[in-house]
């Protein structure tokens, strides 16, 4: 049975590709799916850190490609979830070490025994991005509700469509509901108006994500994490379930609540 191979990419760096890859992987594994998270950011690996598996790395994807080990030896089983595996990137080499055909071959081999392969792409639009895109049969674009991230996402979607890997799905990450309500941040509608792709999920800015990254304990494992809940919803949507999109509202602060008491018609000033 052919696995679903998703490349998670963004154009802009720092928008949350790696966090997203790790958390979707965890969420899918929690639902019983066999998942491999593949770090395609050769030379600047961090998927292992986010998953908390960095001290279990013996072989990496470049070792597999260059024949120094078998694929099975390089796959690291997650310490909490037996269905989740990591294929780490190399930290010593760079992107020229992995060609598109190599990655396609690796994903084909992985596809035989897993349900999902999630490829964490490097930032940018050059060779690293193209290589990460090559094995994909689905593409997930991660962006922030912020003009330069959206500009880059638009560029990347154009490239994905030109490579005939579209249509891509979108995750809007690090939304700050308070700023959106005050009109200081783009809302999801603004982003979709420009990018015109299907929305896969919205993830709010959540400081538990930073904390969990530092601990190597993805937020999707945390019941109480809002971001974790969003990632869990994304996993369910990937499995075909219709999960309504979250509406995030910032709880009104004390001054706002007092202010409302004095409005005669309840509208804010």
């Amino acid at each position, binding site marked *: 049975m052919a696995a679903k191979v998703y490349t998670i990419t963004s154009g802009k760096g720092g928008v949350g590709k790696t966090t997203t890859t790790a958390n979707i992987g965890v969420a899918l594994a929690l639902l019983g799916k066999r998942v491999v998270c593949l770090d395609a950011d050769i030379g600047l690996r961090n998927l292992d850190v986010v998953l908390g598996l960095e001290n279990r790395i013996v072989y990496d994807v470049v070792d597999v490609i260059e024949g120094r080990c078998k694929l099975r030896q390089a796959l690291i089983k997650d310490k909490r979830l037996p269905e989740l595996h990591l294929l780490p990137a190399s930290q010593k080499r760079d992107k020229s070490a992995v060609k598109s055909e190599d990655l396609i071959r690796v994903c084909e081999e992985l596809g035989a025994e897993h349900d999902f392969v999630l490829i964490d792409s490097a930032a940018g639009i050059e060779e690293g991005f193209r290589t990460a895109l090559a094995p994909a049969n689905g593409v997930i674009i991660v962006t922030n509700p912020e003009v330069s991230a959206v*500009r*880059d996402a*638009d*560029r990347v*979607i*154009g*490239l994905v*469509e*030109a*490579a*005939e890997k579209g249509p891509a799905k979108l995750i809007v990450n690090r939304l700050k509901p308070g700023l959106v309500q005050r009109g200081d941040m783009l809302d999801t509608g603004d982003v979709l*108006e*420009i990018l*015109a792709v299907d929305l896969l999920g919205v993830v709010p800015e959540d400081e538990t994500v930073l904390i969990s990254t530092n601990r190597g304990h993805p937020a999707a494992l945390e019941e109480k994490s809002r971001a974790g809940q969003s990632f869990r919803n994304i996993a369910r949507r990937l499995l075909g379930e219709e999960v309504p999109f979250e509406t995030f509202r910032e709880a009104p602060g004390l001054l706002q609540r007092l202010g409302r008491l004095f409005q005669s018609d309840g509208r804010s000033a």
Partner: protein
Amino acid sequence: MVSVDQKSIVIKGIRDGLSVTLPGDGTWPEALAALESRLTQSPAFFKGGRVALMVGARTLTEDDMRQARDLLVRHDVTLWAIVGEAPVTRRIASGLGLDVPPPSSAWVSDPAAPPAESRIWDVAVESERELVAMPLDEWPDAGLVVRRTLRSGQSLRHPGSVAVIGDVNPGAEIIAGGNIVVWGRLRGTVHAGALGDETAVVCALDLAPTQLRIGGRITRSPDDRRRKPRPETARVRDGQIIAEPWGV
């Protein structure tokens, strides 16, 4: 004065850039001289573009092709393909690293043509045929219709008018010799009348371009980002580009 009439060089906007058809008569140096005149006449239109050179039945040497490539490079244009009927021409072009698509006209308007980064549109076939038949200065508003949104990084050049049914996103650009009509949101950069026509107009349902040029004039949107979108036309009046509500 060139013996090859400059006007008999036919330029079309195609997927991946421009196609330039050189006439079959005259020597190669004469054809190149005529092409050089065209390039120097409208530098803004060609600068940064990609060109496929249509050479018909001519048999060209490697030197001929290098001369053409160098000429284009001097005007900041990249030669990416040579389309010719003679097999020896195709072989030499291929040896120089150029693309050699088959010379049938179907290639130019075929939506199934090889995808490339700047692949853009579904072309309205009627306007393609009209363009091939007409000499340069007799073009009416033979237009190109693009039925999708242009994304950041995509670039569309056409010597006639261009209509986009869709949005033009920030980071996308349109350079047209004629008018530009965007049936959607215009947020990228556009240059109408790029061959020197300051009577060209730019219309959009939401006119909010990053930068707008008509002929030799340039302007940008006012910084007022919260205005309500409404259909507008931009044109040159008294030497300045102004925007007016559409329909005036």
